[in-house]
């Protein structure tokens, strides 16, 4: 609508056409008091100047630029509106005002673009049709990626899990504990053994003295029976354990995997129950066929198999279409071939259903050769049949393949991220960058206290030397944290000091802060849980706590301790200062954790504007979080 707002004067003028037919007086027209002539306004976005008419921006009065909100950004000296945003994205936003259509540039990151739109008060839904599909696709991809990130936390062991929950978790994620891994491999081994015995059972291994060869199964009946029993035992135990551990038993019993489990072990029990009756032994033999379903139990062990199954499920419509079109073609060609071959003598095409076999074999280009047309017409139609078979089958297959590929890559992505090595290196680098900030704060706190001392003693030179290395912003920030400490009567300390204090309270089981980064998540977490539990006993002035929120991957950082050598890599030069005796040792802080965890959620209220040096900004956030923690 706003695109045609320029035509509003025209529409109003055209209303004069109604006047003579009107029967009464017209309402008074609104007066345009501002009587502003259309002027050019300058929008300075991070140095790039955009100019447009004021009326262009007025077209959308519920956005930032169209309303009086932009007055907040007006710079009196330069008489322009200054926005500290990305000028590239601003281009598309301004074009929206000009043309009435919002476009999404492909090179733009989706979350950056969303942020810009939110800032300027434009809803993304009005993106034009030309770009909307692309936008939605990218958005969906992004959401999936974020979800993958969040799923990582499943692997973290939460404290106070019941035995049942632990067991279920061990079943679902075998890499979480060694017991689970052992169980996983054992079951896999037994599945393989079971399938192998089923196969070998039927191999003939008679000796030459026998008149006819008997399969091994009948020769070594006892051995095979023992093997079968052992496998079924294992499977039954496993199934019962899973049933016990499942959070929702009803849900578990209906799941595909459990049905496969049941079908795999049932034949054995039915076989036990049934007697060696002649009538039912036929049925019994068929039941043994179901033992082959044990091979599907491997899908718990193989992700590829699961993906395949999932793909087939999601491509159900394509598969259905394939089946339907094949059936149609089979019937058509079978009919044609039957009538074509009816004339020739001793033909194998005795009926239409008999021709089905020929059609299927031909369409799938198998060509066994047991049925061949002899008449010329039959041969012609036979060749048409084989040509069309190729086409019909080739059409839905790429769809299925692309589906499989997409799902597979999604899983690959999750796996990649789960790879410990990549994770650890990245986290370690981030942590090193962040630790500088904590140390900076603690250092400045000490120097602040030193300042006080110096003030008392009156040595000005020393005071100046200490205070000049901290910028005004940092000092204000530190002062804030310091005030907080005073308010809560607790102090910030770092990890080493905290652990020292805990050790001092003589609790021996504090074993995990080993310097090796290879400590598993589970163990370290339990340490910190222990810390928290024990914290209540520690004296209040040594109060510190790791952040435990339900946040992203980076909350795992705090668990790993790093050797003090990385001191030197921290950003702040304050670290070079000598530590005064009796004070807190500078070590990796669990404050670090809180800092990083807060960084990632995109929806938190933005921190107060802080210059691009990352550490101070992070600390601001950490302070707000540590408030929560200390209040416990």
């Amino acid at each position: 609508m706003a695109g045609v707002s320029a035509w509003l004067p025209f529409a109003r003028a055209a209303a004069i056409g109604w006047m003579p037919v009107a029967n009464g007086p017209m309402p008074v027209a609104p007066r345009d008091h501002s009587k502003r002539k259309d002027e050019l306004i300058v929008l300075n976005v991070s140095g790039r100047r955009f100019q447009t008419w004021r009326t262009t921006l007025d077209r959308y009065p519920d956005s930032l630029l169209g309303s009086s909100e932009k007055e907040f950004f007006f710079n009196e000296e330069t008489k322009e509106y200054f926005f500290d945003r990305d000028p590239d994205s601003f281009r598309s936003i301004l074009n929206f005002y000009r043309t009435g259509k919002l476009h999404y540039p492909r090179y733009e990151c989706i979350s950056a673009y969303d942020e810009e739109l939110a800032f300027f008060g434009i809803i993304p839904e009005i993106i034009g049709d030309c770009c909307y599909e692309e936008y939605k696709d990218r958005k969906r991809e992004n959401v999936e990626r974020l979800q993958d990130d969040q799923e990582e936390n499943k692997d973290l062991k939460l404290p106070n899990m019941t035995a049942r929950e632990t067991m279920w978790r061990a079943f679902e994620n075998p890499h979480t504990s060694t017991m689970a891994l052992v169980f996983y491999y054992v079951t896999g081994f037994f599945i393989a053994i079971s399938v192998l015995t089923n196969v070998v059972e039927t191999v003939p291994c008679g000796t030459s003295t026998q008149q006819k060869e008997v399969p091994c199964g009948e020769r070594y009946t006892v051995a095979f029976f023992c093997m079968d029993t052992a496998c079924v035992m294992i499977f039954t135990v496993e199934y019962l354990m899973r049933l016990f551990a499942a959070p929702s038993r009803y849900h578990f019993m209906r799941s595909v995997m459990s049905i496969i489990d049941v079908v795999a072990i049932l034949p054995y029990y039915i076989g036990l129950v049934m007697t060696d009756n002649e009538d039912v032994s036929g049925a019994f033999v068929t039941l043994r066929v179901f033992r082959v379903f044990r091979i599907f139990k491997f899908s718990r062990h193989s992700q590829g198999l699961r993906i395949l199954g999932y793909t087939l499920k999601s491509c159900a419509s394509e598969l259905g279409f394939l089946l339907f079109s094949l059936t149609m073609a089979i019937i058509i060609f079978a009919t044609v071939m039957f009538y074509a071959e009816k004339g020739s003598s001793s033909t194998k095409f005795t009926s239409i259903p008999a021709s089905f076999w020929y059609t299927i074999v031909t369409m799938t280009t198998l060509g066994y050769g047991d049925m061949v047309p002899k008449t010329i017409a039959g041969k012609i139609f036979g060749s048409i049949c084989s040509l069309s078979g190729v086409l019909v089958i080739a059409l839905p297959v790429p769809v299925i393949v692309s589906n499989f590929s997409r799902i597979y890559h999604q899983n690959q992505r999750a796996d990649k991220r789960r790879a410990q090595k990549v994770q650890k290196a990245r986290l370690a680098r981030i942590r090193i960058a962040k630790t500088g900030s904590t140390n900076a704060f603690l250092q400045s706190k000490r120097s602040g206290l030193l300042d006080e001392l110096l003030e008392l003693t009156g040595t000005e030179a020393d005071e100046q030397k200490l205070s000049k290395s901290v910028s005004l912003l940092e000092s204000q920030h530190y002062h804030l944290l310091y005030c907080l400490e005073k308010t809560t009567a607790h102090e910030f300390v770092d990890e080493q000091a905290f652990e020292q204090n805990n050790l001092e309270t003589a609790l021996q089981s504090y074993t995990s802060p080993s310097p090796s980064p290879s400590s598993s998540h589970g163990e370290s977490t339990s340490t910190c849980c222990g810390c928290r539990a024990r914290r209540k006993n520690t004296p209040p002035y040594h109060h510190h706590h790791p952040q435990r929120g339900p946040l992203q991957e980076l909350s795992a950082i705090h668990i790993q301790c790093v050797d003090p050598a990385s001191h030197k890599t921290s950003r702040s030069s304050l670290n070079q200062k000598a530590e005064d005796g009796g004070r807190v040792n500078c070590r990796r802080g669990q404050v670090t954790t809180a800092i990083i965890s807060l960084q990632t959620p995109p929806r938190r209220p933005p921190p107060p504007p802080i210059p691009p040096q990352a550490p101070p900004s992070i600390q601001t956030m950490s302070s707000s979080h540590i408030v929560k923690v200390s209040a416990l």
Partner: protein
Amino acid sequence: MEPGPGRVKDSGKWQKPRFSRKALMKCCLVKWIIASTQPQDKGSFDSTRSSDSDLELSTVRHQPEGLDQLQAQTKFTKKELQSLYRGFKNECPSGLVDEETFKSIYSQFFPQGDATTYAHFLFNAFDKDRNGSIRFEDFVIGLSVLLRGSVTEKLNWAFNLYDINKDGYITKEEMLAIMKSIYDMMGRYTYPCVRDEAPSEHVDKFFQKMDRNRDGVVTIEEFIETCQKDENIMNSMQLFENVI
């Protein structure tokens, strides 16, 4: 006397037709073939055939006359003309408005109802030379009359709008069509509900007022005279003075 070869004398006696060039040119088929192979008459740069208007309109571009000429023709200032042209060009980059675009633009101001019929009448009122598209000059001249013209000029414009076939008389049928289109713009959700007889009743009232000599049509003189006597109408004519 025998007529000379190749000459068809106009005498009463039937002459055997000769296959001559002159005779050939009289054949309709030949004439048509020759006509279609000749290059099409280009015509003036800014006129378009409305029969195949859609495709041609998108390729034809129209540049308006200069700013000064327009200023002379209308009562707008230079700045106003600039602002008007920018809005016009923004919506119609080719410089011409065809009826469909015009209808869609006008309909956007009346979302509840159907403004297409009234827009059609408006289009005809603006499109003075009836070539199926409004150029910027038409647009601006029309606006100049509506916004800056005298009351008489405005009344003339309104009469022109109502007189659909531009014959100088407003008949009851024409007025009914106009009235219906105005009521259509209201849409369904009105209070009180628009009854089906409402337009024709309104037309009757109008004719009662306007048609002095009761001859069933309203002429321009009757129209202007009646309107000038009506205070409401005179006041409402001044309503949109300061729209631009």
